[in-house]
């Protein structure tokens, strides 16, 4: 907007309610109502000893001080970290591999791609029920498959040591296609010239992948990793439907523990404190990844210049 030299006009401008306000207010109200208010309310609840059926009292940060001394919470943090790491890394590896595979031209490619992304479209709870049956140590198909190749039967989700890897297997099976789709998008954006010149220079397939494809699709992998991380850290349905955090509490992540505290033990105050801490953890993880991505981006442009 051009500056007006007229001083009275600019004075009036200074106090007049800007004309765009009526258009902004609905959005602000919605944001305040569904994002800001619930957050403030959660923080407020976390400062109280608040159990359903009992009077509430203000306790300051006592609920937060309880967290590090609660072995179940500390354990659940570790479970969350292991679960998240595994279920980000494995789909990334398999997804990237699948993407390079499906990027090649071969008959029925479209149809096979469609088949491959089917797991992603199914409901997690339905998937969980099917896998629960497959995991069954006596009647499940997985142990039958192991027996075919002469391996001993496994306990899968029924043993504390194998439960998280088994759950990650389900998660990987379901979400590898998502990574594949994102990476495929990246692959199709790569020009073919670098490959032609590499071939002339005598590079083999692995070298072409390692030094051309991988650097060029890294930004896409990062986006995929970020989406996957946020999803995995909050994972609830698959774990709840298959093990409910068991055996014992061997697969209890923060999210499952939070559910128990708030909706089974009705300890709303403590549950809110866990929710706040959990939120901070997710934001921190996302921030770290964003930071890494930015650095990576800077490196790339720096390298190109």
């Amino acid at each position, binding site marked *: 907007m051009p500056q007006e030299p007229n001083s009275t006009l600019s004075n009036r401008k200074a106090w007049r309610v800007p004309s765009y306000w009526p258009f902004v207010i609905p959005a602000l109200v919605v944001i305040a109502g569904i994002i800001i208010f619930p957050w403030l309310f959660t923080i407020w609840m976390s400062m109280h*000893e608040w*159990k*359903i*059926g*009992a*009077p509430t*009292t203000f306790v300051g940060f006592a609920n937060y001080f309880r967290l590090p001394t*609660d*072995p*179940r919470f500390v354990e659940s943090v570790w479970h969350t970290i292991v679960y998240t790491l595994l279920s980000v890394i494995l789909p990334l590896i398999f997804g990237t591999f699948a993407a390079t595979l499906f990027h090649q031209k071969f008959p029925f490619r479209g149809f096979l791609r469609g088949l491959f992304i089917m797991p992603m479209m199914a409901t997690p709870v339905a998937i969980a029920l099917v896998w629960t049956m497959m995991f*069954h*140590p*006596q009647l499940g198909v997985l142990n039958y498959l192991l027996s075919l190749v002469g391996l001993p*039967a496994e*306990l*899968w*989700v*029924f*043993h*504390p*040591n194998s439960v998280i890897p088994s759950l990650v297997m389900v998660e990987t099976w379901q979400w590898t296609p998502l990574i594949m789709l994102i990476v495929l998008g990246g692959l199709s954006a790569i020009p073919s010239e670098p490959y032609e010149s590499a071939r002339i220079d005598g590079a083999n397939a692995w070298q072409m992948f390692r030094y051309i494809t991988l650097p060029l699709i890294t930004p896409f992998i990062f986006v995929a990793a970020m989406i996957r991380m946020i999803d995995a850290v909050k994972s609830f349905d698959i774990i709840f439907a298959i*093990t*409910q*955090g*068991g*055996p*014992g*509490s061997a697969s209890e992540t923060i999210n499952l523990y939070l559910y*128990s505290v708030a*909706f*089974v*033990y*009705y300890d709303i105050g403590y549950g809110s404190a866990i929710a706040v801490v959990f939120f901070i953890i997710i934001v921190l993880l996302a921030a770290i990844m964003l930071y890494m991505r930015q650095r990576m981006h800077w490196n790339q442009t720096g390298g190109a210049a």
Partner: protein
Amino acid sequence: MFEKPLSRRTLLQGSLAVGALGLSPLPAFADPQWKKYAGTKLEVLLAKGPRGDNFQKNIKEFTELTGIEVESEQIPEQQQRQKAVIELASGKPSFDVVHISYHVQKRQFEKAGWLADLSGFMKDPNLTASDLVESDFSAAGLKYAKDDKGRMLSLPWSVDYFILYYNKEMFEKKGIAVPKTFDEMVAAAEKLTDPAAGTFGFVGRGLRNANMTLWTNFFLNYGGEFLDAKGDILTDGPEAVEATKLYQKLLTKYAPPGVSGFNWMESMASFTQGRSAMWLDGVGWAPPLEDPSASRIVGKVGYTVVPAGPKGQYSATYGDGIGVAAASKNKEAAYLLCQWAVSKKQGARLLQAGGGVPFRNSILNDQEVRNGVKLPKEWVQSVIDSAKISKLGLPVVIPVAEFRDLVGAGVTATLSGGDPAVELKKAHEQFRPILERSEKS
């Protein structure tokens, strides 16, 4: 516990009428003023299961009798508990009558004052049929229904005893007698286990939380008590350690692999497939075991009481009741409905379908009712014998869910090699502050 019923004559009249089940719409007892609240509308929140089914199936009779309209919904147990608690805490529940599970909710509901006091109604002949007297309920039922001031806050509806189910065919093949003690049970389990053939001696709940209902049978029979006089929890004492050792032995050596993830459903699957010879669980599972479309062992199931431990013989007992929300505006009408739900007629139907066991002695001791039970006679006998040795299966505290989760996790951990004493100590240390906090508030 099953003393002789008090007023023989009225009960006999009642049982005659129950014998003519469903033929007559008339109530079988001396009449309160059923019609007084005609036109009232009641909302009922039920937990999904045979009690809820039996209630909904016959609710028309209640409406005919009283003119009271009833809207009811059945919700799966876990969600029903959540819904009840959240709505009651809000002060304006959407229901007048609520189905509660005593072993989980008794103390919580009492402390919060969510249930209306029914003692006054029970003494009012205008509201209460003459056969509904406190002494007709079994001791466990009264213990559950009354608060510490002796007020009736709900009517005991259905009791769940733990019994031992066994596969007669497997027992006969090996020539083993039905175990009467824990030692005999372990010996039998050992003989019946043959992993190569895929058959096992014992199966039961290993899943955290669910497993506590099984474990407490061992705990009680080793002489365990949940709380001492000061209200401190006692699940790390020698009785608990011994009970856990037995649990660990049975479930690791003689049970199917993966049992640490088994709830009643998986246990029942293993038992009905004929893969496990013994199963210790609630009395209510007999109908599916005797259903040819769900079970491969129809007619081969034996039913008996929980074997004796070194310090006694008890059947861990759980139960549910039906009560009136304190916030309800139709308490009298709601009370009439509760009364109908636990009436002789409804109780007899429940028992005869195997869907639950009424708390009322006048129903259980009624030969006429017993004759109508479609399940094997042994099952009825195990119910009656269990009633004599029944003992509450969980501590009556507010944080029951935490108790079951924490101690249950410790007990499950012993299935993958954890030491019973160490695991119990750990669980105990986590649970104690929670219990103290809940009693303080």
